[in-house]
């Protein structure tokens, strides 16, 4: 079902639940994986995915269609992730690097990465990026969004996003190279 049709049905109180159910089914995997890449842990990703859709429900009536529904939902999910990571740091008084190290440790223990040394280093390098830079990297590298779409999601200019992605790639390449040299 097209986004436009979902939005139209959502305006009708009698069809609202059906429309929202269709919206969730359409976007749940994208939202879940977007969140999961940011927080790594499945349980955290589950909570944040649900919170995202609850917020979508609350605010969908006010959605003005300045952006596409897809990027609007991504934006809500992104804000949820960033708030979660920020509150996690505040709660445990953790500096920036420690959260990255904690997430990297989860990757280290993942059996899927056993035997793929370069991929493991790449994932660790990504998780060591600052949250917003990691977000930019994920949107571009994994979700293959255009910079314009990324600008809608993050509320940042295209130029700043290009610079951020470029820096992220340089940092990742440097980290993986150094880690490989140390072996």
């Amino acid at each position: 079902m097209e986004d436009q049709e979902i939005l139209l049905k959502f305006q009708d109180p009698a069809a609202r639940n059906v429309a929202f159910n269709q919206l969730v089914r359409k976007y749940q995997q994208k939202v879940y994986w977007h969140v999961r890449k940011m927080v790594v842990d499945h349980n955290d990703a589950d909570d944040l995915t649900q919170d995202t859709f609850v917020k979508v429900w609350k605010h969908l009536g006010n959605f003005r269609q300045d952006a596409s529904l897809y990027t609007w939902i991504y934006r809500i999910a992104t804000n949820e992730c960033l708030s979660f990571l920020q509150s996690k740091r505040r709660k445990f008084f953790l500096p920036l690097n420690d959260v990255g190290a904690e997430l990297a440790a989860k990757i280290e223990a993942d059996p899927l990465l056993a035997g793929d040394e370069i991929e493991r280093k790449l994932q660790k390098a990504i998780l060591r990026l600052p949250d917003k830079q990691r977000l930019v990297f994920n949107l571009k590298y994994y979700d293959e969004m255009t910079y314009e779409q990324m600008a809608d999601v993050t509320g940042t200019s295209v130029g700043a996003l290009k610079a951020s992605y470029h820096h992220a790639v340089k940092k990742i390449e440097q980290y993986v190279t150094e880690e490989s040299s140390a072996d």
Partner: protein
Amino acid sequence: MHMKTPFRLDDHPRRPQPPLASPPAGYFDQLPRQIMARVQPEAAHESVTWGWLATLSRPLRTALASVVVLGGFSTAFYLSQPATQTPNLPPATALAAVPEAALIDYLAVNNQLETEDLASLPLPDDNLMAYFLQASPQELEAALGPAPLDEAYY
């Protein structure tokens, strides 16, 4: 010393997702139900509290909002007025309406005249008194008797 080739991201095979463990089996079948269960209480609450608003047409809702706002202003204005207002009556009528007991009570408490009040009183006017009494000097003398001797010598 062995120098390794610098890592280049473009040369690395791109994956659609990072290699994270998949969510539990059937997770995406259950997720919509869980989300709907979370939004349903809110939906029910919304429909009970404000649902009737949705049934109204847009102009009617606008009119209703205007009435509510105007009502709010009127109530605020009414409440900001003094609690009792004195009716606009002539002083004599207004005074006649005051019970005698209340007047006595008032005077018992507020009957002290200040020096200023006395000073501003008009001096006695003989003509005014004669006009008021409508009596000749002879009639007055007959009524009052001769003037006391001690006063006559002053």
